[in-house]
């Protein structure tokens, strides 16, 4: 992707990115755009670098080379906490902080912005009833925790949301529900980037697929992905 084109992307633009651990690159020359209002799926087998790439997008990890631009601005120049509020991340393990669901959702929010309507709206968007607000977060089931973690990210009104294997611990029905939630959020203008090993899920929800293979990324539509890589059937999560 040329720098001039990346400048015009409304969302995240990745150019010439190399990511890895301890100075050793797992992925090189990665280039794609994740626009607001769309779902981008990062797919690939375990160890392909999906989670590492995802964390470079909000600078929880630093890339070895290349640029990540948000609305045309280099994320390296943005204040990291502000970047992470604009580009939220929901990890594979839904961590519940101590206290109620309400306290989880209101975590680190200014009191003025943690009003009931905002919390309820985020819960509904994540597919949970408002009655969940006063439940003890630590006592929730795995699926409920995943939804609360999603709602917690949404209360910050991010412009883009990064999700790492959001269906890893869910059954087929719950995974479909999460897929519908993500596509609904994208329709409302949110940019969604989801790392998944599940090609079926990616095909269902994504507008664009970034397939991580042989140390680099191939960008295409879900149909192109399924046509060119039918052998990469659903694999167990790492």
């Amino acid at each position, binding site marked *: 992707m040329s720098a001039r084109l990346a400048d015009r992307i409304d969302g995240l633009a990745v150019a010439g990115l190399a990511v890895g651990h301890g100075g050793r690159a797992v992925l090189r020359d990665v280039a794609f755009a994740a626009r607001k209002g769309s779902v981008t799926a990062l797919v690939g087998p375990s160890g392909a670098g999906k989670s590492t790439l995802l964390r470079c997008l909000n600078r929880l990890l630093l890339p070895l080379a290349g640029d990540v631009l948000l609305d045309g601005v280099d994320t390296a120049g943005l204040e990291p906490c502000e970047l992470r509020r604009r580009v939220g991340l*929901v990890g594979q393990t839904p961590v519940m902080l101590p206290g109620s669901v309400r306290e989880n959702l209101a975590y*680190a929010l200014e009191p003025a912005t943690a009003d009931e309507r905002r919390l309820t709206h985020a819960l509904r968007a994540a597919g949970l009833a408002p009655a969940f607000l006063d439940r003890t977060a630590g006592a929730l089931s795995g699926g409920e925790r995943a939804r609360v973690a999603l709602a917690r990210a949404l209360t910050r009104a991010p412009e883009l949301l990064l999700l790492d294997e959001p269906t890893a611990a869910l059954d087929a029905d719950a995974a479909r529900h999460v897929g519908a939630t993500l596509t609904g959020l994208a329709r409302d203008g949110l940019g969604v980037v989801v790392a998944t090993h599940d090609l079926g899920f990616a095909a269902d929800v994504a507008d664009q697929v970034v397939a991580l293979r042989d140390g680099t990324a191939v960008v295409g539509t879900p149909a192109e992905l399924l046509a060119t890589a039918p052998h990469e059937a659903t694999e167990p999560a790492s």
Partner: protein
Amino acid sequence: MSRPLAQLLASAAFVLAAAWLAHRQRLGLSRSLLTAALRAAVQLALVGALIALVFRVPGLAVAFVAVMVATASLTAGSRMRALPGSRRIAIAAIALPALSAVGVLLLVGAFAATPRATIPTAGILIGGAMLATTLTGRRLVEDLGAGADEIEARLSLGDRARDALVPLTRRAIAGAMVPLVDQTRSAGLVTLPGTFVGLVLGGASPETAARVQLTVLLTLLLVQLLSALLTAELVTRAATLPGERVAVPGATG
């Protein structure tokens, strides 16, 4: 029979009895018990001789205290060696609170500024600081690894790296203070603390022994809390990376 000989024979009999019992129960501990007892005897004899020398040459007291600080720092630093600069962290967290407290106690005249009073007092305070540093540092290193998901979740919600580590440091500091708080609360009821016992056996009145013991215990409360706080602060600094990121000990990234 003289008292020193009786003490020697009684303690030897007790350790031999322990080794015999361990042997009879097939615990595989007899050798360790005897080796530990022999080692303790040699170490204490050497330390006794060394302290006797220090009492005669007061200038050596500074070197002796320095050796205590160095040994305590090496021990505590080894418990958190997964972190960069663990020895430096341990030296600062042990030496600053313990030696400052010794200075204050000497300055206000709580103890005589002689090697005989200073070395045992410094030893107790350095030992307490080492315990707090070890407990805080080890817990933090464990939690930085086990709590990586929680730290990442907090960072992803917009926390600064320092803020994301606060719950971990608070838990570690509170945990490190538990043994001393319990010891202070139960002093005289469950056990007679070492200073009290030593002074009474040395011929001091129980009132004097209780007063000195109380001074040491209450000083330790602040020394250990400061050691725990300093450890937490220095570990936080060591684990915080530029760009509001946190280094997880043992991770490759």
